[in-house]
């Protein structure tokens, strides 16, 4: 029974991906990509990785989908100017890709089963940190340096996006498309939903210590709610030059770094937690990171400044 379900799910995902690749209209392709993300989240649930399913649903499908949809709508008028490649070229590319797929598939099937695993090690050392969720344990204890550097990558990407603004608009306001289209239904939704989303984001961040959830998932929900408020025109996008906004952006990584550096003094190594204080420190760092991730992802989706700041 379960096998039949999994086969149909995998088949649907492949069909949707093929449709996304070959359809002519970009907007339809992006729409199909969002549904594709939803079904991929179902696959993650079937692979017993609920943490990843939460991330995929929130970021991979939700926030990425909103970003691509607005880009597709903006670029719609320019779409017909591009000629598709010839049939011979497509056939050659198809053959090459089929060979690569077959090779990868063979490798994936030949990989050792059961795979070499760190699960027993992670599970055995988890009680020392006081956490209950092994994935959060990996993210914030065993591989904390990766997580810290990833925050730096996020901030760097944001610097890259911001630097695309025209010089005289530096520090201005991102033009979140389209800024105005008053609609009472939309306003109602933008006033009702964020309170629910905020609560759910905090819940996910809080529950992440012991159950699936965490800073990324919570932060992505905050992003979605913030984007909703801005899209509905209830609140304008903030000026990228605001000091408070920039402080929020770096608050999470900085706090994490401070906790990591203090590990030298207290526990004898970078990003080491003193025994007994691991869980409270991680929850504090996660809270700050949730806020920073939410703000960073939202600003990434909002794009570079396109209007000057009011004096």
């Amino acid at each position, binding site marked *: 029974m379960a096998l039949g379900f999994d086969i149909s799910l995998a088949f649907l995902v492949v069909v949707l991906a093929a449709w996304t690749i070959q359809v002519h209209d970009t907007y339809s392709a992006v729409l199909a990509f969002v549904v594709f993300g939803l079904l991929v989240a179902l696959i993650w649930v079937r692979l017993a990785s609920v943490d990843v399913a939460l991330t995929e649903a929130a970021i991979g499908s939700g926030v990425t989908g909103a970003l691509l949809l607005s880009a597709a709508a903006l670029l719609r008028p320019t779409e017909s100017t591009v000629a598709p490649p010839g049939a011979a070229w497509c056939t050659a590319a198809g053959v090459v890709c089929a060979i690569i797929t077959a090779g990868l598939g063979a490798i994936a099937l030949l990989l050792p089963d059961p795979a070499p695993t760190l699960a027993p090690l992670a599970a055995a050392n988890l009680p020392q940190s006081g956490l209950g969720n092994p994935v959060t344990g*990996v993210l914030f204890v065993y591989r904390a340096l990766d997580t810290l550097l990833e925050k730096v990558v*996020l901030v760097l990407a944001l610097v890259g996006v911001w630097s695309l603004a025209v010089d005289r608009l530096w520090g201005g306001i991102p033009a979140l498309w389209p800024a105005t289209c008053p609609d009472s239904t939309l306003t109602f939704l933008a006033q009702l939903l964020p309170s629910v989303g905020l609560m759910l984001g905090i819940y996910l961040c809080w529950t992440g210590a012991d159950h699936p959830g965490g800073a990324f998932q919570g932060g992505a929900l905050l992003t979605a709610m913030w984007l909703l408020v801005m899209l509905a025109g209830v609140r304008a996008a903030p000026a990228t030059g605001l000091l408070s906004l920039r402080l929020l952006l770096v608050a999470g990584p900085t706090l994490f770094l401070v906790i990591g550096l203090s590990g030298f003094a207290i526990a004898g190594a970078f990003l080491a937690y003193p025994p007994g204080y691991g869980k409270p420190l991680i929850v504090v760092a996660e809270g700050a990171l949730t806020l920073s991730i939410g703000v960073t992802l939202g600003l990434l989706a909002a794009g570079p400044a396109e209007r000057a700041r009011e004096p």
Partner: protein
Amino acid sequence: MTSTDIFALCATTLVGLGLFGIITNPQPLRKIVAFNVIGNGVFLLFGVVAHRGAAAGLGADPVPQALVITGIVVAFSATALAVALLLRLAKQTHLLTLEADDGSDGDLS
């Protein structure tokens, strides 16, 4: 053939399809979408390996899971950067192509 094998094949097919899309779709935005399809395929391969490594009462190995979570977030930031570049390009040139103006192979592509 177990469920995990099915998902492994699904993941590799996604990589192939996405690669095909990157090569054959002329519009840059479609290339970005195809890139995300490849990304999903690669992440799913990680998920398959994690699920095969289930042990110690955990449904899947937590280390690949954590890698994929960071991977999804980084993939989003790369997508956002690419989309911002693309929109700026479209604004600057009023065109939406990576080809050079004279129709020959562009050095941008």
